[in-house]
């Protein structure tokens, strides 16, 4: 089988197995050329082919009355009323961000933005979900600061606001940060454009930045583990040019208004290769291009290099024959040059020429639909049964609740992310009605009364301890955050960050997590319209916590009814929706106080979760509640404090005790991360109406206190267990991250 010029070493460098090579030979009915081998290697990489994950992803719910575009396109789309669609997707840029934090993160932002405007939508909001190691590690601080600066550098320049997100810290991410970026755009239903090539003889255009040698084999790199040689892969990370992308964005949206386009796709991972064969495959057509026509930044580039380059800010378009001049004129206005590089053919093949001579000829479907699909072996990891055991009594004498409260407020995962979001332009486009740091991001839709709420959430510890339940909790939390703003969750996207799928225990985590996402999305009626899988998140054989991140989008019919986290008036009643159980498994409490990741994650009743969302949505629409806040990391104690931050108001609360061993009652009550809870505030005259609404829907609810004074005072069974001045809370919570990054300033 291994004949010709393709040696085992060459195969290994391309990340292809002998079996895969055999499939290539039978698809082509001959030996591939080196260019063809390169094309196969990137299209069959995990990153592009989803070969390990596809069988599992197929089980996710992807349809619904609002779904206009499900998975398989550049991004998903859901109907938001008024003839408009929300087009959104989340994508990872983990591997590049570790190797080169600024550019890795920046180009991640650039890539997801292209996916959105490629669909004909104007991008209006960005979110990101980030994971790093502990901030006391200088290398982590460098990565963290670099990633944040990279996201800021790209998003700010292009003028798309970063309106929210999440940042969490754990040792397992120290050598492999997670950088997941979400983008949402708005399009009219009839403006949605697809990545399709059709119409024999229609010209294929290349537009945007010139092609260089950067990023060759980026997709292959993203499909391998890290080791101490990773730094040598730096040339495989691309450099972003947000100005070029801004021009492309405006020019493409202008061209799309003309109806002269058949289809368009960005050149992201696997560059020209991926865009040509995917567009051809979707349209059932062939694409014939000549790489010598591709604008090049460097001299002497081979067809192999041109096809595999991942230079940023490039698009491929199929234009209706006869409309070329119109399209070219618009790009010229923006000082961009649309170059005709080929045309659509009937034979279903990707044909690559160099000065006319054919250098690769491959059936498009061999690269896309017929790429290998693996049902990889799975096995429940040995650690799970042991890790799920948690005996609070064995932890010894606990600290006081007040001490834990202060420690948790200062935990970077819980503390204010102002240091981060202050670097992001979160207000450009003048739609941001809820500023970052307040739960879901909310943007109004100009030209309509509506607003969209969006949240990205995940909890790697929960998924580590129980992938099925942990993934469900991620869906529930993202949807709950959206519902807290008063929005009906209408669609989701996921970014699945896991380790090496060739290890059966990782594959098991992955499969169970996908099952959990599917079950939760079905129960909460949230179709998944697309997303991204990032595997091989390992360094030196050590995997990150399995971290599925869910992005959920919700719609609010009246933007003026958006509900925020912060309390609004002294004297308002504080009501806890849902119940607190003694559920410290996988909590931030155990991690911060005992450096433990143990126990089982909080139980989740999806029916009750859905009922909670209905109350929040109904109470927001009717103006019944004044504020709403999800209870998650840090539990009830932290959530109560967060409702006061920035308001100048304190609170007095008496919270019902959770059933836990005596020494841990206070901790279980305040810091358990029980699901399906929210804290709302309500004018005293509306308290009864809220409680009866909760009863009708079947969610436990009770008044636990009132907005009052300038201290956070929480009692359990008549004992005051937390009594802190708001100013001290704000200082601790507000400066925790700055203290690591700018110690001199934070002290001053």
């Amino acid at each position, binding site marked *: 089988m291994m004949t010709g010029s393709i040696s085992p070493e060459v195969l290994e460098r391309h990340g292809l197995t002998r079996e895969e090579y055999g499939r290539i030979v039978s698809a082509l009915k001959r030996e591939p050329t080196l260019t063809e081998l390169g094309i196969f290697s990137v299209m069959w990489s995990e990153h592009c082919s989803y070969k390990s994950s596809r069988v599992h992803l197929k089980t996710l719910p992807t349809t619904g009355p609002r779904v206009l575009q499900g998975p398989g396109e550049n991004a998903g789309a859901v109907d938001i009323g008024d003839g408009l669609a929300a087009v959104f997707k989340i994508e990872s840029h983990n591997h590049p961000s570790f190797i080169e934090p600024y550019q890795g993160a920046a180009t991640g932002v650039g890539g997801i933005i292209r996916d959105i405007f490629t669909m004909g939508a104007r991008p209006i909001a960005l979110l990101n979900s980030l994971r790093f190691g502990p901030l006391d590690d200088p290398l982590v601080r460098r990565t963290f600061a670099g990633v944040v600066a990279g996201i800021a550098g790209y998003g700010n320049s292009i003028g798309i606001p970063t309106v929210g997100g999440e940042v969490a810290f754990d040792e397992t991410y120290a050598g492999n940060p997670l950088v997941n970026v979400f983008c949402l755009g708005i399009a009219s239903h009839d403006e949605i454009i697809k990545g399709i090539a059709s119409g024999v003889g229609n010209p294929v255009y290349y537009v945007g930045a010139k092609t260089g040698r950067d990023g060759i084999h980026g997709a292959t790199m993203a499909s391998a583990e890290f080791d101490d040689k990773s730094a040598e892969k730096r040339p495989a990370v691309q450099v972003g040019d947000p100005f070029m992308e801004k021009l492309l964005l405006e020019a493409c949206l202008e061209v799309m208004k003309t109806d002269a386009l058949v289809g368009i796709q960005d050149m992201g991972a696997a560059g020209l290769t991926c865009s040509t064969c995917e567009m051809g495959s979707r349209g059932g057509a062939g694409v014939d291009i000549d790489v010598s026509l591709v604008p090049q930044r460097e001299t002497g580039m081979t067809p192999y290099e041109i096809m595999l380059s991942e230079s940023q800010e490039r698009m491929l378009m199929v234009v209706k024959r006869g409309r070329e001049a119109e399209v070219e004129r618009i790009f010229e206005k923006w000082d961009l040059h649309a170059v005709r590089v080929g045309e659509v053919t009937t034979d279903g093949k990707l044909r690559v020429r160099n000065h006319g001579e054919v250098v690769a000829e491959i059936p498009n479907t061999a690269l896309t639909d017929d790429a290998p699909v693996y049902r990889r072996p799975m096995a429940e990891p040995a650690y799970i049964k042991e890790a799920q055991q948690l005996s609070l009594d064995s932890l010894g004498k606990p600290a006081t609740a007040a001490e834990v409260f202060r420690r948790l407020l200062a935990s970077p995962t819980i503390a204010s992310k102002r240091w981060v979001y202050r670097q*992001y332009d*979160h207000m450009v486009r*003048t739609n941001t*009605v809820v*500023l970052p740091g307040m739960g879901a991001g909310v943007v109004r839709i*100009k030209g309509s009364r509506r607003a969209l709420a969006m949240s990205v959430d995940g909890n790697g510890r929960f998924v580590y301890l129980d992938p099925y339940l942990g993934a469900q909790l991620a869906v529930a939390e993202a949807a709950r955050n959206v519902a807290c703003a008063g929005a009906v969750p209408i669609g989701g996207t996921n970014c699945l960050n896991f380790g090496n799928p060739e290890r059966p225990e990782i594959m098991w985590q992955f499969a169970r997590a996908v099952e959990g996402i599917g079950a939760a999305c079905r129960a909460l009626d949230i179709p998944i319209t697309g997303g991204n899988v990032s595997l091989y998140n390992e360094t030196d054989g050590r995997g990150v916590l399995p971290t599925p991140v869910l992005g959920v989008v919700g719609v609010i019919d009246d933007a003026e009814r958006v509900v925020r986290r912060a309390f609004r008036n002294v004297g308002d009643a504080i009501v806890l929706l849902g119940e607190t159980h003694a559920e410290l498994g996988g909590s931030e409490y155990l991690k911060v106080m005992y450096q433990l990741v143990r126990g089982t994650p909080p139980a989740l009743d999806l029916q009750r979760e859905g009922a909670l969302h209905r109350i929040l949505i109904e109470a927001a629409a009717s103006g019944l509640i004044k504020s709403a806040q999800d209870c998650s990391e840090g539990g009830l104690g932290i959530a109560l404090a967060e409702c006061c931050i920035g308001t100048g108001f304190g609170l007095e609360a008496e919270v019902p005790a959770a059933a836990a061993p005596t020494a841990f009652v206070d901790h279980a009550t305040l810091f358990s991360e029980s699901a399906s809870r929210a804290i709302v505030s309500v004018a005293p005259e509306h308290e009864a109406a809220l409680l009866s609404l909760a009863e009708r829907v079947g969610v436990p609810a009770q008044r636990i206190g009132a907005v009052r004074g300038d201290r956070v005072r929480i009692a359990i069974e008549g004992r005051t267990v937390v009594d802190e001045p708001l100013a001290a809370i704000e200082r601790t919570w507000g400066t925790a991250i700055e203290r690591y990054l700018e110690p001199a300033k934070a002290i001053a």
Partner: protein
Amino acid sequence: MKFAVVVFPGSNCDHDAHYAAEQVLGQQAEYIWHKETSLKGADVVILPGGFAHGDYLRTGAIARFSPVMEEVRRFASAGGPVLGICNGFQVLLEAGLLPGAMLRNRSLKYQCEHVIVKVEQTDTPFTNACRPGQLLRIPIAHGEGNYYAEPDMVAQLERRRQIVFRYTSAEGTATDASNPNGSVANIAGLCNEQRNVVGLMPHPERACELALGSADGLIMFESAVRFVADGARRDYSGTAAAR
């Protein structure tokens, strides 16, 4: 009356300024592409925020060569009201229509947040509806907003009352703590000697509706409307006959 919003490649607050003028204020507004050579009969010109030409050189350094700037210059020298917001302010500095220069923020980071600015001068086209000393809560969003001028120049700006906005505390005092970027003398915005060209780093167009957290910026647009209405509609183009 009509606002012209100049669009440089890389402008990204052009839509916001247009929306504030047209949708919030109810006035006419028109985009003017940077390659155009006419302001199309506009009464007020806005150079919006963003990253003109990517700002890979100095901010605003390339935008000043755009063809439309010749017309903006002519409009300004004829007394027409010109407002530069953020990157637009940086362009006005580079174009020499306002004195001084921008350095990177002293934090060396991009900063996006609400700040308080005090209106120090009310005899400009963009502050005439303000009370003297009025405090406005308006967002900033920039990486290079650390205004610098030589001490002699700052003294001259003070003497000629060209400092229109200063960063202050909530009580209206220009303290170091209330200075978000290190600008000399807490300068947030200034005008030219003729007082018709105004530039500022904060974004009034982002603070025109309570739904966005503040409507304090609207008064600057209202001032412009009043200025034009009071001024009996002068023709600032200097090329009226040609049109």
